[in-house]
């Protein structure tokens, strides 16, 4: 491999620190790659060439002056447009926030800046992170670099496609029901949803407060683990933040790379295998081949029963929209963002209403209506209340399972990347994409998706779920799987065609 953009973030970091490459060279290489292929892929909503190069020059100056630098200093990054970045447009891919320039930084943006990682730009997503294909972006469709007729997953399709197409070595995603892992699986990239509360949500544009979790997107476990440690840790500005040491995920990723899983018990969920919405045969085949590899490394496979997982999808589609209906109430045209109908002819209430009518897309409206209904008087106990009870049962299923096993494995998503428009007419078909990822969000535990092969020429992901604050176990198993492969799946992605072809 000769090109800068083919290197992993860890390799680039070492090259920069040891003087083989400058951060400006590295950052420029990725910016040029964006120029070359993003006209086709459309992963970015905003590219900040000047800002990224300014950070790169600072890092290079420090290194030239012999100053100590830390992990990933000078390694560029892309950030999902749901994370607030001071001075850089942040829209959550919604018209209602078009043109809004945040006056403050999210905690993870601060941490990325403190780590001196040049920010390449903001990536596309489903509007307010609601969707599984990035087709619900108000601005553009992002194409899957493996097959530009197919979706890149969602909601974090932009970050996944940017990494898959080597426009960024690493990226930030957010995962509410699978929005890091599912795009990872369908683009052949590595995605991790950390333990809820271990990564600050301050400055993350809220979709569902009790589920949203920011996390890393990368090409392999080690890069993801290093980024994970950069952004993780207690934040007093987030009341749901966990005040405890970050699980040692980098150490776990390095340990896993030794390829030894002796004594590690991996659970497979009986109810996933039995479900009527079971995975496509090609996905199952790739998954089972991966399980065989894990067994060869010494892992023991144990069947666990999680009967409440059957209700995970409906539970999620009551809790997440309920919280969203309230979280999105602030977009009313009064203080920032879009304002529609302020022409002297309409009342304040009408302006608020017209703004929301014009500013929100169909899926966001669907979920606001769903959530408003689920919380309304007379229905709240039967819907939101019942969903909370089932959520408790799902947590208990996980807790019981983790008494027997160290981690739980499954396919990340039941099907490979589908074609554009394929699931737009039936929301339920779209929601099924997150069938295997949603239980972890309801539980609050960590999970990673690691690429394990192809089905019909498209990538398939293995999901590894750990207990709360046991992120390291998931990284160890994923890194062990990677050690069985000659090359990263991400490195075998086809070259995107330049724009205009």
């Amino acid at each position, binding site marked *: 491999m000769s090109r800068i953009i083919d290197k992993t973030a860890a390799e680039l970091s070492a090259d920069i620190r040891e003087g083989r490459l400058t951060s400006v060279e590295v950052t420029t290489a990725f910016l040029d790659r964006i120029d070359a292929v993003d006209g086709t892929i459309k992963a970015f909503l905003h590219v900040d060439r000047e800002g990224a190069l300014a950070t790169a020059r600072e890092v290079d100056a420090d290194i030239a002056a012999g100053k100590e630098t830390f992990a990933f200093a000078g390694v560029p990054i892309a950030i999902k447009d749901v*994370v*607030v970045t001071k001075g850089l447009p*942040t829209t*959550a891919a919604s018209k209602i*926030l078009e043109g*809004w320039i*945040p*006056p*403050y930084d*999210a905690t993870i943006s601060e941490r990325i800046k403190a780590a001196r990682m040049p920010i390449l730009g903001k990536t596309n997503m489903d509007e307010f992170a609601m969707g599984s294909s990035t087709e619900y972006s108000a601005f553009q469709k992002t194409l899957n670099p493996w097959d530009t007729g197919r979706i890149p997953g969602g909601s974090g399709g932009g970050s996944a496609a940017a990494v898959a197409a080597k426009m960024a070595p690493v990226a930030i995603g957010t995962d509410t029901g699978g929005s890091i892992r599912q795009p990872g699986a369908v683009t052949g990239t590595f995605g991790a949803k950390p333990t809820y509360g271990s990564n600050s*949500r*301050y*400055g*993350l*544009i*809220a979709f*569902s*407060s*009790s589920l949203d979790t920011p996390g890393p997107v990368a090409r392999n476990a080690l890069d993801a683990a290093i980024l994970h440690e950069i952004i993780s840790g207690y934040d*007093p*500005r*987030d*009341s*749901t933040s966990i005040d405890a040491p970050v699980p040692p995920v980098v150490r776990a990723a390095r340990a896993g790379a030794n390829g030894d899983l002796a004594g590690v018990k991996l659970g497979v969920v009986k109810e996933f295998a039995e479900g009527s919405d079971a995975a496509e045969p090609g996905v199952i085949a790739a998954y089972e081949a991966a399980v065989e590899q894990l067994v060869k490394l010494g892992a023991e496979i144990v069947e666990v029963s999680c009967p409440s997982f059957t209700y995970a999808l409906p539970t999620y589609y009551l809790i997440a929209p*309920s*919280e969203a*209906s*309230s979280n999105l*109430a*602030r977009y*009313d045209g*009064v*203080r*920032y963002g879009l304002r529609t109908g302020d022409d*002297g002819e309409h009342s*304040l*209430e009408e302006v*608020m209403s017209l703004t929301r009518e014009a500013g929100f897309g169909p899926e966001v409206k669907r979920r606001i209506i769903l959530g*408003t209904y689920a*919380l*309304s*008087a007379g229905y*709240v106990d039967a819907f*939101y209340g019942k969903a909370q009870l089932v959520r408790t049962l799902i947590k208990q299923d996980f807790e019981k399972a983790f008494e027997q096993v160290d981690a739980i494995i499954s396919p990340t998503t039941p099907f490979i990347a589908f074609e554009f428009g394929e699931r737009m007419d039936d929301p339920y078909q779209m929601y099924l994409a997150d069938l295997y990822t949603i239980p972890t969000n309801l539980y609050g535990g960590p999970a990673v998706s690691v690429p394990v092969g192809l089905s019909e020429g498209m990538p398939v992901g293995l999901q590894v779920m750990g207990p709360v604050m046991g992120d390291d176990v998931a990284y160890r198993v994923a890194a062990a799987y990677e050690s069985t492969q000659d090359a990263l799946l991400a490195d075998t992605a086809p070259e995107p065609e330049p724009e205009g072809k």
Partner: protein
Amino acid sequence: MTKLNDYDKAVETYEPVLGLETHIELDTNTKMFCGCSTVFGAEPNTQVCPVCLALPGALPVANRAAVEATIKIGLALNCHIAEWTRFARKNYFYPDMPKNFQTSQYEEPLCEEGYVDVVVEGREYRVEIERVHLEEDTGKTLHVGGATGRIHGATESLVDYNRAGIPLVEIVTKPVPGTGALAPEVARAYTAELRDIVRSLGVSDVRMEQGSLRCDVNLSLNLPGDGWGTRTETKNVNSLRSVERAVRYEVRRQSALLDAGERIFQETRHFQETTGETRAGRSKEEATDYRYFPEPDLAVMEPSRAWVEELRAGLPELPRKRRERLQASWSLGDKEMQSVVNADAVDLIESTVAAGATPSGAVKWWLGELSRRANENGDELGALQITPAQVAQLQGMVDDGRLNDKLARQVIDGVLAGEGDPADVAAKRGLEVVSDTGALEAAVEEAISANPAVADKIRGGTHAAAGVLIGAVMKATKGQADAGTVRQIILDKLS
């Protein structure tokens, strides 16, 4: 025109049931969920940040000082302090509420099940407290361009978010039956007691005129023996006197409707400070579904029992104890003390005594002349433009013989008119008693020579005749002489 019954007739027929919801702004240094300042009166939108402006992505963090203050209030109101409590979102759209939901508490308030005892006309009433919970205030909307400053007819609406997010404690009573004709007085006494309790805790300045204590008054009427009637909720009741007036008005209004065989609608009404009326709000408000659910952005709170007991042990002397102590030290009878309390004069008298006046002097001024003036203007006693220190100075001048009561009242005129301290007013207006005995003696000599017959009578031992000469001297000195001194001089000269 709204029909109103005579109040006395109304309470002969119907039994009122009261309920009070009181909002108190805490005077913490920072807001409920962010680090912004809470100082009153700053330039609009200067005390704001991403959190209290509800910028995308911002998250709340609960203010521990506000939680502590609420627990103190709960303890002072004899409440149980929750072992497990959390915030909830109250969802509704309003432009002065940045998130379009208010972070409040719903099913799990911080404090529950307390009581306050108040005494009205010698009888003690127990007002039971249902809950004390913590929430955040909204911003303020200013409607510009209309004739009335109200939204109707306005061309622009401006929002000031400085107040948005200031911690607010809501104290809700259980229904209070059994007050009969004294419902307005009980409502007032409860509000005053609550205010005094909160003030004694030092957690709020409880200034009704600045809106840091706001009341909603619930009232229903029923016939004796019947179940409770339908209640109305009157908002915007922002002084002790208004609490009393609002209750009285609703009793008169509702009884007239009931007499006419009409129904009372459960509705929100607004108190009109100028007319003393209550007016129906938009009936749309009745249909509001707040869609409460637990606030997922804030952690559950579990106040430790050790912390609660530490706060309980640290409570200051509460108003009732303090009143008992002051009553004893001022040597007042129960009735007299009750008058002081009812006139809302405890603090004023205490400060006046502290400034050097005798208790009886202080009581005399505040309950007498000053109460009369306040009533004339429809003001609270505390709203008069005279300070306890000025009253103490006034009483001192009387005690020294520099003022008599009549002159003192004229001095009060001057102080209330903003002419300065009593001594300044007396000097400027030339109101001091003439204590120059030389001048008085000359005036007496003049009076004697002008009234020789009267002088003879006095010389003959008829001392009562001195009144005529005193009158003459007072007239000559324009009332600025001390009558006792004049009398003494006359008797000295004529015996």
